[in-house]
Protein backbone atom coordinates (compact mmCIF):
# COMPACT_ATOMS: atom_id res chain seq x y z
CA UNK A 1 0.00 0.00 0.00
CA UNK A 2 1.42 3.43 -0.89
CA UNK A 3 2.49 5.61 2.03
CA UNK A 4 -0.24 8.01 3.08
CA UNK A 5 -0.23 11.08 5.28
CA UNK A 6 -1.67 10.82 8.76
CA UNK A 7 -4.02 13.68 8.03
CA UNK A 8 -5.34 11.88 4.97
CA UNK A 9 -5.87 8.68 6.98
CA UNK A 10 -7.61 10.58 9.78
CA UNK A 11 -9.89 12.38 7.34
CA UNK A 12 -10.81 9.15 5.57
CA UNK A 13 -11.52 7.50 8.94
CA UNK A 14 -13.90 10.34 9.74
CA UNK A 15 -15.94 10.12 6.55
CA UNK A 16 -15.73 6.51 5.41
CA UNK A 17 -18.92 5.36 7.11
CA UNK A 18 -20.90 8.16 5.53
CA UNK A 19 -19.27 7.33 2.21
CA UNK A 20 -20.25 3.68 2.70
CA UNK A 21 -23.87 4.68 3.32
CA UNK A 22 -23.95 6.74 0.16
CA UNK A 23 -22.39 3.97 -1.91
CA UNK A 24 -24.90 1.42 -0.62
CA UNK A 25 -27.82 3.71 -1.38
CA UNK A 26 -26.54 4.37 -4.86
CA UNK A 27 -26.37 0.64 -5.56
CA UNK A 28 -29.92 0.18 -4.29
CA UNK A 29 -31.66 -3.17 -4.01
CA UNK A 30 -31.85 -4.07 -7.66
CA UNK A 31 -28.14 -4.65 -8.17
CA UNK A 32 -25.98 -7.15 -6.32
CA UNK A 33 -22.49 -6.41 -5.07
CA UNK A 34 -21.13 -9.09 -7.40
CA UNK A 35 -22.85 -7.53 -10.40
CA UNK A 36 -21.52 -4.09 -9.52
CA UNK A 37 -17.99 -5.42 -9.03
CA UNK A 38 -18.17 -7.18 -12.39
CA UNK A 39 -19.40 -4.08 -14.19
CA UNK A 40 -16.77 -1.88 -12.56
CA UNK A 41 -14.06 -4.39 -13.46
CA UNK A 42 -15.22 -4.28 -17.08
CA UNK A 43 -14.97 -0.51 -16.99
CA UNK A 44 -11.34 -0.78 -15.95
CA UNK A 45 -11.56 -0.45 -12.17
CA UNK A 46 -9.75 -3.04 -10.10
CA UNK A 47 -12.61 -3.54 -7.67
CA UNK A 48 -13.60 -6.97 -6.36
CA UNK A 49 -16.87 -7.98 -4.74
CA UNK A 50 -15.22 -8.01 -1.31
CA UNK A 51 -13.95 -4.48 -1.89
CA UNK A 52 -17.49 -3.38 -2.80
CA UNK A 53 -18.69 -4.94 0.43
CA UNK A 54 -15.91 -3.36 2.54
CA UNK A 55 -16.47 0.09 1.06
CA UNK A 56 -20.22 -0.14 1.69
CA UNK A 57 -19.60 -1.11 5.32
CA UNK A 58 -17.21 1.79 5.77
CA UNK A 59 -14.24 -0.52 6.11
CA UNK A 60 -12.35 0.43 2.98
CA UNK A 61 -8.80 1.29 3.92
CA UNK A 62 -7.91 3.39 0.91
CA UNK A 63 -9.82 6.62 0.31
CA UNK A 64 -12.26 6.26 -2.54
CA UNK A 65 -10.99 8.16 -5.56
CA UNK A 66 -13.09 10.50 -7.70
CA UNK A 67 -12.80 8.04 -10.57
CA UNK A 68 -14.16 5.18 -8.47
CA UNK A 69 -17.05 7.25 -7.11
CA UNK A 70 -18.06 8.28 -10.62
CA UNK A 71 -17.57 4.75 -11.97
CA UNK A 72 -19.72 3.39 -9.12
CA UNK A 73 -22.50 5.85 -9.91
CA UNK A 74 -22.19 5.17 -13.64
CA UNK A 75 -22.69 1.44 -13.10
CA UNK A 76 -25.66 2.11 -10.82
CA UNK A 77 -27.31 4.66 -13.19
CA UNK A 78 -27.12 7.03 -10.24
CA UNK A 79 -25.16 9.91 -11.71
CA UNK A 80 -27.96 12.39 -11.06
CA UNK A 81 -28.73 11.07 -7.59
CA UNK A 82 -28.29 13.18 -4.50
CA UNK A 83 -26.07 10.45 -3.05
CA UNK A 84 -23.34 11.05 -5.61
CA UNK A 85 -23.48 14.79 -5.01
CA UNK A 86 -23.11 14.20 -1.26
CA UNK A 87 -20.24 11.79 -1.79
CA UNK A 88 -18.41 14.19 -4.06
CA UNK A 89 -18.88 16.93 -1.52
CA UNK A 90 -17.62 14.71 1.28
CA UNK A 91 -14.59 13.73 -0.77
CA UNK A 92 -13.90 17.31 -1.76
CA UNK A 93 -14.37 16.56 -5.43
CA UNK A 94 -16.33 18.32 -8.13
CA UNK A 95 -17.35 17.55 -11.68
CA UNK A 96 -17.83 20.07 -14.49
CA UNK A 97 -21.51 19.11 -14.96
CA UNK A 98 -24.79 20.47 -13.60
CA UNK A 99 -27.56 18.31 -12.09
CA UNK A 100 -29.48 18.63 -15.36
CA UNK A 101 -26.41 17.45 -17.27
CA UNK A 102 -26.09 14.44 -15.01
CA UNK A 103 -29.75 13.58 -15.61
CA UNK A 104 -29.00 13.56 -19.33
CA UNK A 105 -26.09 11.18 -18.69
CA UNK A 106 -28.43 8.86 -16.77
CA UNK A 107 -31.05 9.07 -19.52
CA UNK A 108 -28.47 8.15 -22.10
CA UNK A 109 -27.30 5.20 -20.03
CA UNK A 110 -30.86 3.93 -19.66
CA UNK A 111 -31.59 4.49 -23.35
CA UNK A 112 -28.72 2.25 -24.36
CA UNK A 113 -29.47 -0.53 -21.87
CA UNK A 114 -30.73 -2.58 -24.81
CA UNK A 115 -27.31 -2.63 -26.46
CA UNK A 116 -25.23 -5.77 -26.21
CA UNK A 117 -22.98 -6.02 -23.16
CA UNK A 118 -19.81 -5.39 -25.17
CA UNK A 119 -21.24 -2.34 -26.93
CA UNK A 120 -22.54 -0.90 -23.67
CA UNK A 121 -19.10 -1.21 -22.13
CA UNK A 122 -17.42 0.60 -25.02
CA UNK A 123 -19.93 3.42 -24.68
CA UNK A 124 -19.65 3.59 -20.90
CA UNK A 125 -15.85 3.66 -20.95
CA UNK A 126 -15.93 6.64 -23.25
CA UNK A 127 -18.71 8.34 -21.30
CA UNK A 128 -16.57 8.00 -18.20
CA UNK A 129 -13.86 10.11 -19.83
CA UNK A 130 -16.40 12.76 -20.74
CA UNK A 131 -17.87 12.65 -17.24
CA UNK A 132 -14.51 13.12 -15.62
CA UNK A 133 -14.06 16.20 -17.74
CA UNK A 134 -11.11 14.90 -19.68
CA UNK A 135 -10.67 15.45 -23.39
CA UNK A 136 -11.26 12.27 -25.37
CA UNK A 137 -8.12 10.38 -26.26
CA UNK A 138 -7.49 7.21 -28.24
CA UNK A 139 -8.83 4.09 -26.58
CA UNK A 140 -5.40 2.47 -26.64
CA UNK A 141 -3.97 5.16 -24.38
CA UNK A 142 -7.02 5.02 -22.11
CA UNK A 143 -6.55 1.28 -21.73
CA UNK A 144 -2.85 1.66 -20.97
CA UNK A 145 -3.67 4.10 -18.22
CA UNK A 146 -6.13 1.47 -16.94
CA UNK A 147 -7.90 4.08 -14.81
Amino acid at each position, binding site marked *: MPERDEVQIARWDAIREQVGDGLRQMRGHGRSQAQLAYEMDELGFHVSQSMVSRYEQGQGEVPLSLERMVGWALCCDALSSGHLRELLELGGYSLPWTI*GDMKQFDLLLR*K*FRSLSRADQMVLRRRMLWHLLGVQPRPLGIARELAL
Partner: protein
Amino acid sequence: MTMNVLELDDTRRQLRDRLRVMPHDGDPRAGVRRMRALLQEMGVQCDDTAELEDADAILLTSGRGMEALIASRLDDDQRHQAYSRIVARLIIGQMHEPIDAKIEYHSKHTTISRQEKEEDAAVAKFATALAEGNLNLAPRPLYEDVPKLTLAFTPRSAARSTLGGMHLWSDYWYRRSTMYRWWRSRKDVSSAIKRVCVILNPRRPAAA
Protein backbone atom coordinates in the same frame (compact mmCIF):
# COMPACT_ATOMS: atom_id res chain seq x y z
CA MET B 1 -21.17 22.38 -18.91
CA THR B 2 -23.07 22.55 -22.19
CA MET B 3 -22.15 21.35 -25.61
CA ASN B 4 -21.02 24.11 -27.89
CA VAL B 5 -23.85 24.21 -30.44
CA LEU B 6 -22.14 26.89 -32.50
CA GLU B 7 -19.11 24.67 -32.74
CA LEU B 8 -21.29 21.82 -34.03
CA ASP B 9 -22.93 24.11 -36.60
CA ASP B 10 -19.52 25.25 -37.70
CA THR B 11 -18.41 21.63 -38.00
CA ARG B 12 -21.45 20.91 -40.17
CA ARG B 13 -20.73 23.84 -42.47
CA GLN B 14 -17.08 22.89 -42.85
CA LEU B 15 -17.98 19.26 -43.45
CA ARG B 16 -20.29 20.26 -46.28
CA ASP B 17 -17.58 22.44 -47.81
CA ARG B 18 -15.04 19.60 -47.71
CA LEU B 19 -17.44 16.95 -49.00
CA ARG B 20 -18.02 18.84 -52.23
CA VAL B 21 -14.35 18.66 -53.17
CA MET B 22 -13.55 15.24 -51.73
CA PRO B 23 -12.22 12.91 -54.44
CA HIS B 24 -13.74 9.45 -54.94
CA ASP B 25 -11.84 6.67 -56.66
CA GLY B 26 -13.83 3.63 -55.55
CA ASP B 27 -11.08 2.37 -53.24
CA PRO B 28 -12.72 1.85 -49.82
CA ARG B 29 -9.38 1.99 -47.99
CA ALA B 30 -8.60 5.38 -49.48
CA GLY B 31 -12.18 6.41 -48.73
CA VAL B 32 -11.71 5.49 -45.07
CA ARG B 33 -8.49 7.51 -44.91
CA ARG B 34 -10.19 10.54 -46.42
CA MET B 35 -13.25 10.33 -44.18
CA ARG B 36 -11.10 9.86 -41.08
CA ALA B 37 -8.87 12.78 -42.03
CA LEU B 38 -11.94 14.89 -42.66
CA LEU B 39 -13.45 14.07 -39.28
CA GLN B 40 -10.18 14.62 -37.44
CA GLU B 41 -9.77 17.95 -39.16
CA MET B 42 -13.20 18.87 -37.78
CA GLY B 43 -12.04 17.96 -34.28
CA VAL B 44 -13.71 14.55 -34.11
CA GLN B 45 -11.48 12.04 -32.34
CA CYS B 46 -11.58 8.81 -34.38
CA ASP B 47 -10.83 5.34 -33.09
CA ASP B 48 -10.94 2.31 -35.38
CA THR B 49 -10.23 -0.19 -32.63
CA ALA B 50 -13.47 -0.15 -30.64
CA GLU B 51 -14.51 -3.64 -29.52
CA LEU B 52 -18.09 -3.26 -30.67
CA GLU B 53 -20.05 -6.46 -31.05
CA ASP B 54 -23.30 -5.47 -32.81
CA ALA B 55 -22.96 -1.79 -33.59
CA ASP B 56 -20.73 -0.64 -36.43
CA ALA B 57 -19.93 2.73 -34.92
CA ILE B 58 -20.78 5.17 -32.16
CA LEU B 59 -20.76 8.94 -32.38
CA LEU B 60 -20.41 10.52 -28.96
CA THR B 61 -20.59 14.28 -28.44
CA SER B 62 -20.34 16.37 -25.31
CA GLY B 63 -18.87 19.63 -24.14
CA ARG B 64 -15.61 17.70 -23.85
CA GLY B 65 -15.47 16.94 -27.56
CA MET B 66 -16.69 14.60 -30.25
CA GLU B 67 -15.65 11.02 -30.74
CA ALA B 68 -16.25 8.49 -33.49
CA LEU B 69 -15.74 4.90 -32.35
CA ILE B 70 -15.57 2.43 -35.22
CA ALA B 71 -15.76 -1.33 -34.69
CA SER B 72 -12.45 -3.09 -35.22
CA ARG B 73 -14.20 -6.14 -36.77
CA LEU B 74 -15.28 -4.26 -39.91
CA ASP B 75 -13.63 -4.79 -43.29
CA ASP B 76 -12.64 -1.86 -45.50
CA ASP B 77 -16.00 -1.56 -47.25
CA GLN B 78 -17.96 -1.71 -44.00
CA ARG B 79 -15.57 0.74 -42.34
CA HIS B 80 -15.97 3.15 -45.23
CA GLN B 81 -19.73 2.88 -44.84
CA ALA B 82 -19.46 3.39 -41.07
CA TYR B 83 -17.36 6.53 -41.50
CA SER B 84 -19.80 7.81 -44.12
CA ARG B 85 -22.62 7.28 -41.63
CA ILE B 86 -20.77 9.26 -38.98
CA VAL B 87 -20.26 12.14 -41.42
CA ALA B 88 -23.89 11.91 -42.56
CA ARG B 89 -25.03 11.85 -38.92
CA LEU B 90 -23.06 14.98 -38.12
CA ILE B 91 -24.72 16.76 -41.03
CA ILE B 92 -28.29 15.47 -40.67
CA GLY B 93 -28.59 14.34 -37.06
CA GLN B 94 -29.83 16.23 -34.04
CA MET B 95 -27.29 15.98 -31.21
CA HIS B 96 -28.61 16.94 -27.79
CA GLU B 97 -26.87 18.80 -25.01
CA PRO B 98 -24.93 18.21 -22.84
CA ILE B 99 -24.10 14.74 -24.06
CA ASP B 100 -25.49 12.55 -26.79
CA ALA B 101 -24.59 9.34 -28.53
CA LYS B 102 -25.73 7.87 -31.81
CA ILE B 103 -25.30 4.21 -32.59
CA GLU B 104 -24.73 3.22 -36.20
CA TYR B 105 -25.70 -0.21 -37.53
CA HIS B 106 -25.14 -1.79 -40.91
CA SER B 107 -28.72 -3.04 -41.06
CA LYS B 108 -32.05 -1.80 -39.79
CA HIS B 109 -32.29 -1.76 -36.05
CA THR B 110 -34.90 -1.16 -33.41
CA THR B 111 -35.27 2.50 -32.57
CA ILE B 112 -37.23 4.08 -29.79
CA SER B 113 -39.08 6.90 -31.48
CA ARG B 114 -40.44 7.65 -34.93
CA GLN B 115 -38.19 10.69 -35.12
CA GLU B 116 -35.11 8.54 -34.53
CA LYS B 117 -36.29 6.04 -37.12
CA GLU B 118 -36.69 8.78 -39.72
CA GLU B 119 -33.32 10.27 -38.86
CA ASP B 120 -31.64 6.85 -39.11
CA ALA B 121 -33.18 6.21 -42.52
CA ALA B 122 -32.13 9.63 -43.87
CA VAL B 123 -28.62 9.16 -42.48
CA ALA B 124 -28.35 5.72 -44.09
CA LYS B 125 -29.42 7.02 -47.51
CA PHE B 126 -27.16 10.07 -47.37
CA ALA B 127 -24.26 7.92 -46.17
CA THR B 128 -24.68 5.67 -49.21
CA ALA B 129 -24.53 8.72 -51.48
CA LEU B 130 -21.40 9.89 -49.63
CA ALA B 131 -19.67 6.53 -49.82
CA GLU B 132 -20.39 6.22 -53.54
CA GLY B 133 -19.31 9.79 -54.22
CA ASN B 134 -22.74 10.65 -55.63
CA LEU B 135 -23.65 13.71 -53.62
CA ASN B 136 -26.04 14.85 -56.35
CA LEU B 137 -28.34 11.95 -55.38
CA ALA B 138 -29.18 13.80 -52.15
CA PRO B 139 -30.83 17.19 -51.59
CA ARG B 140 -28.41 20.02 -52.20
CA PRO B 141 -28.94 21.81 -48.85
CA LEU B 142 -27.19 18.83 -47.25
CA TYR B 143 -23.92 19.56 -48.97
CA GLU B 144 -23.90 23.14 -50.25
CA ASP B 145 -25.37 26.60 -49.79
CA VAL B 146 -28.55 27.07 -51.74
CA PRO B 147 -30.84 30.05 -52.42
CA LYS B 148 -33.26 30.90 -49.64
CA LEU B 149 -37.02 31.21 -49.74
CA THR B 150 -37.46 34.96 -49.28
CA LEU B 151 -39.62 37.85 -50.36
CA ALA B 152 -38.94 38.51 -54.03
CA PHE B 153 -39.46 41.73 -55.98
CA THR B 154 -37.86 40.96 -59.33
CA PRO B 155 -38.27 38.02 -61.71
CA ARG B 156 -34.73 36.84 -60.94
CA SER B 157 -35.12 36.97 -57.16
CA ALA B 158 -38.55 35.32 -57.53
CA ALA B 159 -36.95 32.47 -59.44
CA ARG B 160 -34.24 32.09 -56.82
CA SER B 161 -36.78 32.22 -54.03
CA THR B 162 -38.86 29.55 -55.75
CA LEU B 163 -35.74 27.44 -56.00
CA GLY B 164 -35.10 28.04 -52.29
CA GLY B 165 -38.60 26.81 -51.52
CA MET B 166 -38.03 23.70 -53.59
CA HIS B 167 -34.80 22.98 -51.75
CA LEU B 168 -36.56 23.40 -48.41
CA TRP B 169 -39.29 21.02 -49.54
CA SER B 170 -36.76 18.51 -50.79
CA ASP B 171 -34.72 18.61 -47.58
CA TYR B 172 -37.88 18.27 -45.46
CA TRP B 173 -39.19 15.21 -47.30
CA TYR B 174 -35.75 13.59 -47.60
CA ARG B 175 -35.68 13.48 -43.80
CA ARG B 176 -39.22 12.14 -43.49
CA SER B 177 -40.28 10.04 -46.44
CA THR B 178 -38.90 6.71 -47.58
CA MET B 179 -40.63 7.14 -50.92
CA TYR B 180 -39.07 10.56 -51.46
CA ARG B 181 -35.61 9.29 -50.52
CA TRP B 182 -35.95 6.48 -53.06
CA TRP B 183 -37.22 8.89 -55.69
CA ARG B 184 -34.55 11.53 -54.98
CA SER B 185 -31.72 9.01 -55.23
CA ARG B 186 -32.64 8.11 -58.82
CA LYS B 187 -30.17 9.45 -61.40
CA ASP B 188 -32.86 10.61 -63.83
CA VAL B 189 -34.62 12.54 -61.07
CA SER B 190 -31.34 14.06 -59.98
CA SER B 191 -30.61 15.16 -63.57
CA ALA B 192 -34.08 16.66 -63.92
CA ILE B 193 -33.65 18.58 -60.66
CA LYS B 194 -30.30 19.85 -61.86
CA ARG B 195 -31.91 21.17 -65.04
CA VAL B 196 -34.62 22.92 -63.03
CA CYS B 197 -31.94 24.46 -60.84
CA VAL B 198 -30.08 25.79 -63.87
CA ILE B 199 -33.27 27.25 -65.31
CA LEU B 200 -34.20 29.00 -62.05
CA ASN B 201 -30.69 30.14 -61.18
CA PRO B 202 -28.69 30.31 -64.41
CA ARG B 203 -25.98 32.55 -62.98
CA ARG B 204 -24.75 30.00 -60.51
CA PRO B 205 -25.76 26.55 -61.75
CA ALA B 206 -23.22 24.73 -59.57
CA ALA B 207 -24.85 25.96 -56.39
CA ALA B 208 -28.36 26.14 -57.72
